[in-house]
């Protein structure tokens, strides 16, 4: 990991750090908020992407280096920003739980909305794209093994059930079929939601997509199906190609906003009128309807998954 | 509220305190601050006031000491009473910061909320030909680099930096003194700063964007035998000392800089 850190810091420091300091910094980045990794990812993602570094993290780095009698204790803000990226990278790569690993990466990627229009200000494209490999869609496509069943007798079996007796007679294969049917039902419900006239009649495309996506994710009884979210969003957009400044989009959806758990998300925080570092630039950026929908969708999904994990 | 009044030697800090103490007792119309309670022991303030009242240059503040002046002031707009603590410290002690000889400042255990920095004659340019009179120097020892070779603007920036490291005060007022000399050439103190020290202007805008700038004339005019009577009359009429704000507005309310820090 020292080598990776040296790569991340390349171009940030005038005189490359020696191995001893690199090793210390790896340990520091690993140990920072190690008991609260969701908070760590949120904080470090924002620090790196906005360049406005977390004071907590800066102080932790300085104090730990001081405690270790390091010659260098004060690190410049650009270095702290890159250490923040390294902290995210380290946390993702070293997480043994598959789901958490992908959630951390997705949180980071959701926060990348803050880089919209200023991509070239970010360093370490290669490292960032390594983190991208752990987006939640990859987890879902890997873990959602519920297959398709072309024909099954499970429907007629269940239709004939008399309660109290017959449920226990299902064998393993039938349970598998049942799972498939359940998934079919879930997808059906999504399809039906997307045909909801009341929602489709909303003329403002951003409000329409917001309404549909929030209801969609709320309706998920099981979060880990590999829903074709992009298709749903494109469908909700209904061919709309309009671009709109985010500040105006937020104004449009304000009447609909409600309390959403926003522990980790930029867009949801802005919708909730919470402070987000360096968001002024983002608020002046234009998003098209589908972009807006995708960012929103994955923020909502991530929040729900984290909430379920913590239950 | 603790306010540190800082500035190099002969920048008018003591004259200001003397004039201020007079005006707090004899407020002009619309003055922002006045005494809520006259200090029980006015003797130190009397000593500072005397030269100002007598239209005489003030004696230099004793080097090596810090006399703390405690004032109970009333803000006239809302009647609020504020305690203000102003240490009177010789300019040499601040200048000594640049020479790493500021034990007095370093040991000062008060934590000021604000700083009032007095600056006089910013345009003592580093580019001035300081060796003008030294044409005849030949085969003599190389002149040593000394405090006088560091420009006024750099000295003041260094003082600001080090004071802020020592005492992270929240509010800053910069007072360009002897404004009676500049008032015809500059409409406001920001213009004066920009034209005479772009670097210091950039420094202040960067680190202290909320700093207030003032042009101050505590004396009211350069002292000469010709204007003694006129200055006495102006003192009696409350139109002697004056302040010019960043907006270029002239006022006889010498408490404005202090009031801006409350």
């Amino acid at each position, binding site marked *: 990991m020292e080598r990776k850190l040296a790569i991340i810091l390349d171009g*940030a420091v005038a*005189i490359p750090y020696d191995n001893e300091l690199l090793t210390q910094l790896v340990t520091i980045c690993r140990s920072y908020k190690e008991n609260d990794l969701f908070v760590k990812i949120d904080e470090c993602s924002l620090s790196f992407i906005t360049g406005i570094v977390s004071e907590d993290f800066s102080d932790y780095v300085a104090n730990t280096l001081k405690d270790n009698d390091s010659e260098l204790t004060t690190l*410049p803000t650009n270095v702290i920003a890159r250490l923040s990226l390294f902290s995210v990278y380290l946390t993702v790569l070293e997480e043994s739980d598959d789901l958490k690993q992908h959630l951390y990466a997705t949180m980071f990627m959701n926060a990348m909305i803050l880089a919209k229009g200023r991509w070239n200000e970010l360093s370490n494209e290669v490292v960032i794209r390594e983190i991208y490999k752990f987006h939640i869609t990859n987890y879902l496509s890997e873990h959602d093994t519920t297959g398709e069943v072309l024909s099954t007798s499970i429907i007629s079996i269940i239709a004939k059930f008399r309660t109290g007796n017959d449920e226990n007679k299902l064998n393993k294969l039938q349970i598998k079929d049942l799972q498939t049917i359940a998934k079919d039902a879930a997808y059906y419900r999504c399809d039906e939601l997307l045909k909801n006239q009341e929602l489709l009649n909303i003329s403002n495309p951003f409000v329409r997509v917001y309404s549909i996506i929030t209801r969609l994710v709320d309706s998920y009884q099981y979060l880990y199906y590999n829903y074709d979210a992009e298709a749903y969003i494109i469908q909700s957009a209904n061919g709309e190609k309009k671009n709109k400044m985010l500040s105006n989009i937020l104004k449009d959806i304000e009447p609909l906003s409600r309390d959403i758990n926003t522990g980790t998300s930029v867009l949801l925080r802005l919708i909730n009128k919470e402070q987000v570092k360096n968001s002024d630039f983002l608020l002046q950026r234009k998003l098209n309807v589908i972009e807006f929908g995708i960012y929103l969708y994955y923020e909502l999904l991530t929040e729900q998954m984290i909430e379920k994990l913590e239950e | 509220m603790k306010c540190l009044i800082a500035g190099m030697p002969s920048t008018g800090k003591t004259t200001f305190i003397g004039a201020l103490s007079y005006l707090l007792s004899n407020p002009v119309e619309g003055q922002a601050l006045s005494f809520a309670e006259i200090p029980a022991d006015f003797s130190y303030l009397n000593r500072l006031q005397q030269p100002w009242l007598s239209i005489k240059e003030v004696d230099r503040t004793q080097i090596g000491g810090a006399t703390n002046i405690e004032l109970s002031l009333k803000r006239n707009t809302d009647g609020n009473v504020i305690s203000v603590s102003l240490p009177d410290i010789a300019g040499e002690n601040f200048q000594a910061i640049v020479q790493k000889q500021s034990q007095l400042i370093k040991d000062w255990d008060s934590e000021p909320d604000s700083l009032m920095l007095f600056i006089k004659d910013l345009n003592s340019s580093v580019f001035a030909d300081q060796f003008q009179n030294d044409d005849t120097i030949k085969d003599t020892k190389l002149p040593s680099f000394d405090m006088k070779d560091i*420009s006024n603007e750099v000295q003041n920036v260094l003082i600001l930096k080090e004071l802020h490291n020592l005492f992270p005060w929240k509010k800053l007022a910069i007072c360009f003194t002897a404004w009676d000399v500049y008032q015809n050439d500059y409409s406001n103190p920001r213009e004066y700063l920009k034209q005479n020290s772009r670097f210091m202007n950039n420094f202040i805008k*960067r680190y202290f964007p909320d700093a207030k700038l003032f042009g101050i004339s505590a004396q009211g005019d350069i002292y000469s035998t010709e204007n003694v009577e006129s200055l006495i009359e102006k003192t009696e009429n409350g139109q002697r000392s004056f302040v010019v704000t960043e907006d270029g507005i002239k006022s006889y309310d010498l408490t404005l800089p202090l009031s801006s820090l409350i």
Partner: protein
Amino acid sequence: MDDKIELITGVNPAEVPAVKPAERADNIGQFIGEAMSDDQKINALMSSSKPEITVLVGFVGYGKTSFVSSFYQTLLQKEDIAGYAFYDSETLVGLERRSFLRRLNDRNIEIAPETKRTVLGEPYLLTFHLSHPQYGDKLVVISDHSGEDYADYAAKKGKIADDILIKNADRIMFFVDSEKLCNEQRLSLTTQYQQLLRNMKENGLFVRKTKLQLVFNKIDKVNDENKFGKEKEKLITNFEDIINLKIGQTFEIRANSLKNNNKLISLFEDIILHTVEETSNQPQASSLDWVNEMINKKK
């Protein structure tokens, strides 16, 4: 913070005496804000981006200090250089010292010339914090070692190995005294540079993508332009042969005068704008925009 407190810790009692004569006639170390002499301290400088390091190389009297002083004076006097305004430095007194030396030179005071220079081992790192309203902040660091230091590097093989900064410089500017290049001191100049360049090469100094430039100073003292042109070309070829690399740009300047000196100002602009160039390693707009990538895949 501790360094700063250390800098202002006085060693004298509360009474403030007049400035004491220091052990060195030039009172180095007496003031806060002196030039720095520890290369590693650069890594501790507060900056939102990597400091841009320019190392000035040249022997005694080649004009490095005059150049730095002119750079400093220009930053103080002008509103900005190439849009960048000067707002801070950790080494203000170091810069003021160099201005002082320059003023001595300007006055042509009849004192032994070698005493009017930065001296061997004197602190040499100078910092300039600059800000552009559109492009943000930049920290420019200039290394102005004394000419004696470089004479030492030329004469002693291993000496330059200790210089970490020159190994990590973004730009190295080799100063040449154009007057000497055209007179009987030419051989001494070229020989000394050959020794220095060989030592630099042996210590692996020319492997990074460092900008290498030649600055022909004191151009106002050149009387024979043809001769100068020839000697200049010879010197460039000499340099390139030893270091096995092409010299980037060359400049012809008069470092000690700001009057009508557009060439000098252009060089200052070059230092500020082009010491670290934007590389193609910067992300392209689309490569980090995973959302649009997702949308495009769907299409």
